């Protein structure tokens, strides 16, 4: 019986493991006006090559992944990323001044101290529901990090 259970776990293990994405340092910035887009940031590490293809949240009309491209003249442009590539075991970080999740059509302001639910869908078929803390509008990083 025990051996059967162990065998089952070992057999199924690759399937569980195949869609294993670790999310860390997730946070959103409190929005100033409900009519203005908000930004959320996180770090994704997948144990296999995958792609983040969609993000939704019940409180925003749509969520897009944006990269910021800055040219030699210091001009910054936002570029929509259709699918965010997640190389195997390589952390991909969305942080202020570079990549971010842009939340538009907010049904309410993102208030500091609340949590923002996010649903992430991956090319592998994996789906994750997470919730990230909403920090102040002037926040620059996940939490107060020790220097």
């Amino acid at each position, binding site marked *: 019986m025990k051996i059967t259970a162990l065998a089952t776990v070992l057999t199924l293990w690759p399937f569980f493991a195949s869609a294993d994405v670790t999310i860390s340092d997730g946070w959103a910035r409190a929005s100033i*006006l409900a009519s203005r887009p908000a930004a959320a940031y996180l770090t994704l590490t997948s144990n296999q090559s995958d792609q983040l293809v969609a993000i939704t949240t019940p409180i925003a009309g749509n969520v897009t992944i944006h990269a910021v491209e800055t040219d030699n003249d210091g001009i910054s*442009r936002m570029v929509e990323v259709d699918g965010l590539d997640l190389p195997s075991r390589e952390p991909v970080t969305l942080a202020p001044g570079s990549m971010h999740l842009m939340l538009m059509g907010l049904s309410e302001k993102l208030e500091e101290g609340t949590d923002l639910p996010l649903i992430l869908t991956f090319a592998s078929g994996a789906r994750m529901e997470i919730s990230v803390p909403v920090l102040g509008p002037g*926040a620059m990083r996940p939490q107060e990090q020790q220097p």
Partner: protein
Amino acid sequence: MSIEPSETSPKARLLRTILWGTVILVIAGVAISWALDMYLGNGSKTVRYSGEADIRSEFSLTDHTGQEVTQADYTYRWQLVFFGFTNCPDICPTTLAYMASVVDLLGEDADQVAPIFITVDPERDTVPVMAEYVSVFHPSLIGLTGTEAQVAEASRNFRTWYERTEDDSAPDGYFMAHAGHIYLMQPSGEFEAVYQEGGQPPEALAQEIRKKL
């Protein structure tokens, strides 16, 4: 180079060497003085080569309280100026939060510095929008808006650049691409230095500004 004629006397060869040497020295001298002139500028000439010297704080805009203002309203203070727009989800809040940290770090010296945020999207960034937006970052942050023409003129005087980019994923279907520079202007309105958020921690910028006050 042609092959040296075998009949050339040593004297003629020496003369030729001296002549060529002189020509090369003159060319090098002219090139060096021209390069120095380009690099350092020359106070005695009216023409100035430095592009930075042309950046100047000159504008006629409306502040977030509805007052019409010009650069003259801030001449007794140094100015920390950033161009952006309130529909910008990342760079603008990040930079304004950074400027707010710098102002806080200046402590008692903060009243000698006016932090100014000029919108490049006056169509949406009206006075009430600017009022609510700037108050979130810092009580002393000044938000400036105006007509399209007024904003374009201010941007020209600061030698900065912005452009409307149509994008279906953006609020109202467009973003504003813009430069992410923070200008430090002297109380006279003349250019002092330019920075970028991420270029140095806020502590370092606050220290640098304090030394100049």
